[in-house]
């Protein structure tokens, strides 16, 4: 025999109330206390001053800022430092350079709003990364804002004016 199950209206209302209110509430609260979260991204990272001489070497194919301690030195000395490439310690950490050691001696001059860097090697033969290394290193020595563009010159050949690429 089929017995019809009768639910009183009261029971139905009660079940509805439970379903409507209690279930989402439990879902809302989830649990109590402090629960782990995902990574939350805040404001920009803090900026601090740095000292030393700034040159740019390559790390994983990217021009990367390298600081060398010691006394402040002449711009031509900085370019010589760049041409000399990474030290043993830096090399151990994976730094390389594409700037040829024949770059030095180089001369730095100014011409019509552009920094002229006269080098002894053929500037047309320099790789893009090498040019970026040189431009960034030269621009790091100046304090003008915005930085003066840099033109590489050798035996009448010119590259530039160029600027160091911006970082995010």
């Amino acid at each position, binding site marked *: 025999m089929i017995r019809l199950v009768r639910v009183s209206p009261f029971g139905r209302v*009660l079940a509805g109330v439970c379903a409507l209110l209690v279930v989402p509430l439990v879902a809302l609260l989830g649990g109590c*206390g*402090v629960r782990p979260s995902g990574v939350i991204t805040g404001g920009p990272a803090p*900026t601090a001053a740095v000292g030393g001489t700034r040159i740019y070497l390559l790390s994983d194919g990217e021009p990367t800022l390298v600081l060398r301690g010691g006394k402040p030195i002449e711009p031509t000395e900085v370019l010589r430092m760049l041409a000399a490439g990474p030290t043993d310690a830096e090399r151990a950490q994976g730094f390389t350079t594409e700037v040829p050691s024949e770059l030095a001696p180089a001369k730095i001059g100014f011409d019509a709003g552009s920094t002229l860097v006269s080098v002894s090697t053929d500037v047309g033969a320099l790789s893009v990364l090498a040019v970026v290394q040189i431009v960034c290193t030269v621009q790091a020595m100046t304090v003008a804002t915005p930085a003066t563009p840099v033109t590489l010159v050798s035996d009448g050949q010119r590259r530039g004016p160029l600027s160091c690429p911006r970082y995010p």
Partner: protein
Amino acid sequence: MTTWALGLRGRLLLAFAVLGLTTTALVAGVSYGQARTVILQKAQDAAVLSMVDQVARLVPVRELPPSQEQLDTIARVLSEGPDPAVVAYRGQAASSSSLSLDEIPVDLRDSVTEGKVVWQRVTMGGGPVLAIGTQLMTDQPGGGTEPTGIEVYRLHALGEEQHSIDQLAALAWSTGAASLVLAVLLALLAARGVLRPVRELGRAARRLGEGDLRTRATVRGTDELAGVAQIFNQTAERLERQVGELRRMEADARRFVADVSHELRTPLAAMTAVTDVLDEESARLPGDAGKAARLVSQETQNLAQLVEDLIEISRFDAGTAALSLDDLDVAAAVRATLRSRGWTDQVGTELPDGIVARLDPRRLDVIVANLVGNALRHGAAPVTVRLRATAGWVEVTIADHGSGLSPDVLARAFDRFYKADTARSRSDGAGLGLAIALENARLHGGSLVAGNRSPQGAVFTLRLPSGGQQ
């Protein structure tokens, strides 16, 4: 469904409890959630700000890639507070501080390179910990910033916040419990207000059902329940009036029968005297005249018996029938009854001597005579009368070997003027014998039950209290 077969009180309790709990859960839950968010956000923002501030005020880095010594120095500066810090360079070389880089979540380390301050809540050592990470940026000449590759991580324990939030939760729970208790109390109060009148009404209805027609419910207030009580009272009043009317009419009818019977008694006595004479003369009357005289005599006797029976019944109905009890030997009384009716030869008996009971001898005689007469007329021989005594009772059973009583007859055997066999000749009696027997048995405080016995035959069982009326 039995699950919902709750009483009014249960349903009210449940409804109030659900309402109270839901409201409290919603309010407490939402405020708990918000308070938790606020507490956590505040703590996190403070920890992040403090670290960002400290990082921005670090002694300028003079060498990149930094030496181990430099990393250790930065880590030491940042670890000066209660929170441990670790400093890494491009995700590799780390400071040799108390905190190891491996303890920082990988997700956080991956996100640090995007140039923003990042943080993440993790569970560490059983407690919640905020891990904050950032890269150290430096101004690029000519505007903008560039990463130095130095990454700083610091862990900030959220134990205090956890404690505050736990306290909030405890408060929410106790609020919920208090509200449940309050809801239950309110529900009980409401249920009492509703249930009391309902219960009173139920009691009144039960009393009315038990026959107390004067029952009235108390009408209190003007609500729906008061309306029901009013309707109940009106119904009871009408019922009482109608039942009273019916009773009066029935009493009138009975009185009429009693009066008629009494009025018939005197002329019947005269007629009986005449028919006695006629009986004696009938033998000498010729042909039809003699037959007619005998017929008149017989019918007059029947009529006299009927009137006697009616008067007897009327006495029972009027409640004027009275017992005149006497200690008597039941076996001797039964034997006397059979002998006086001339049934001794037709009836088998089982009457042990020495059973003495306090009974009305005349009424016992009427009962036994009516039952045995009934068995002889409608049952089949042999008819047997048995007597036995049980504790406090005497039991007389009159059994025959006829076809027994059908269920229909069993139900109505003691009704007045009821005749099981409609084809029965009217000279067999008016159908009052068993009714009178039953009334007599009841007057004694005993019982008379009709039944069937195996293999066949009807049996009437008379039980009378041996110590007089009970």
